[in-house]
């Protein structure tokens, strides 16, 4: 929920944005409230943004979203009282929703879920300041680019008919188990399923490759993700120039038509470039 407002850098903060107050003197002991509250870190983004007030964070009750700035970069954080384990569905959705909203407006380096630091001051001192140049360079490279995820799922009937046509042994085993109870045909069923599974894996590899190659000319980069379901046809993350988004969607729709009745395609995004940020060597 950030808006790119280059003109509103210093003067535009809401009064509650305490993080922009001068940092505590080095060496001063943390106050009680600082000890009780930690800072959940969502991602790193350019400093010249401001937040819309409705953005909500992880935790229960959700922490208020804030920016802590260092030079021309900022970290998106919220206060977190670590009173319960993190990772309820609402936490996960809040993390991704917030970063996706931000990514629709400005470049952002998303952190993996679950990053918590001691305080806003520690975020500046240990995260932003020491790695400023690296983060700024990465943000510049992501300017005008967005990530999308493409998922393809086979239509089961079409998929199985293809396999039966191409695998004579599968067709034969199918006749063998036809209308017989599972207990009586256990071995044949396992063998049949194994043949089908192997055939599906080969189809997935081929279709994933075809989709990746077909979309690549419209993308900055393509990452092939692991399948998340045994009937997945393809699972890709792509980085797309925002002004070439139409060409990308056209290319994807070509596949949608080519695979109609066979593969259902889903397009997710734009989202933060999770698959295209690289953690440096620790």
């Amino acid at each position, binding site marked *: 929920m950030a808006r790119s407002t280059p003109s509103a850098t210093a003067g535009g903060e809401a009064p509650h944005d305490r993080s922009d107050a001068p940092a505590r003197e080095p060496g001063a002991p943390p106050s009680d409230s600082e000890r009780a509250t*930690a800072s959940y870190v969502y991602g790193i983004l350019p400093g010249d943004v401001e937040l819309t007030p409705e953005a909500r964070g992880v935790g229960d009750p959700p922490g208020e979203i804030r920016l802590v700035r260092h030079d021309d970069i900022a970290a998106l954080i919220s206060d977190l009282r*670590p009173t*319960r*384990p*993190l*990772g*309820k*569905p609402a936490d*996960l959705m809040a*993390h*991704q929703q917030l970063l*996706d909203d931000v990514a629709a407006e400005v470049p952002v380096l*998303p*952190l*993996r*879920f679950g990053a*918590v*630091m*001691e305080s806003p001051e*520690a975020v500046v001192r*240990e*995260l932003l300041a*020491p790695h400023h140049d690296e983060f700024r360079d990465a943000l510049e490279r992501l300017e005008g680019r967005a990530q999308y*995820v*493409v*998922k393809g*799922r086979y239509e*089961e*009937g079409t998929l*199985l*008919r293809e396999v*039966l046509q191409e695998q004579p042994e*599968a067709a034969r*085993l*199918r006749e063998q188990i036809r*209308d017989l109870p*599972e207990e009586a045909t256990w071995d044949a*069923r*396992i*063998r*049949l399923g*194994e043949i*089908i*599974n192997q055939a599906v894996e080969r189809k997935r590899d081929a279709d994933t490759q075809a989709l990746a190659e077909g979309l690549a000319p419209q993308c900055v980069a393509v990452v092939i*993700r692991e399948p*998340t*379901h045994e009937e997945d046809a393809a699972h890709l993350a792509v980085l797309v120039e925002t002004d070439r988004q139409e060409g990308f969607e056209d290319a994807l*729709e070509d596949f*949608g038509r080519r695979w*109609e*009745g066979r593969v*259902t395609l*889903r*397009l*997710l995004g734009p989202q*933060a470039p*999770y*698959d295209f940020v690289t*953690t*440096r060597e620790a």
Partner: protein
Amino acid sequence: MTIVQPSAGGAPGRPSSSGGGLADVIDTILDKGLVIDAYVSVALVGIELLTINARIVVASVDTYLRFAQAVNRLDLAEHQKGLPELMQDMTQGVAKSKTKGIAQGALEAAGEKLREFAGEYAQEPAPRRRRGREED
């Protein structure tokens, strides 16, 4: 076990576009993105995370039996099977599976079946594709 609302389906030939359900979120934010430990050493706060992992596909005996059951039910003469019928078949398949000791989970966004294993399958490495469980 988490039940995810189905996302809007797209028209044939046209990919549907959406923000994605919880399953898609889990695939992304739990094992993608920058890892803070690589940048910060001192001021990290260790916080307990619920045991949720990105989904993985592990081919198993269960996968094979499911494929065999699906192909057994497949009517080769009927090429234009509608979605409601497919869903119905799926439900029937579930009911049959239960007699073999497989407890069925919930339907997920894209129609994925979530499964847990019980009884006689306890010996097998449980190939849960998705472990979106809350333990609190």
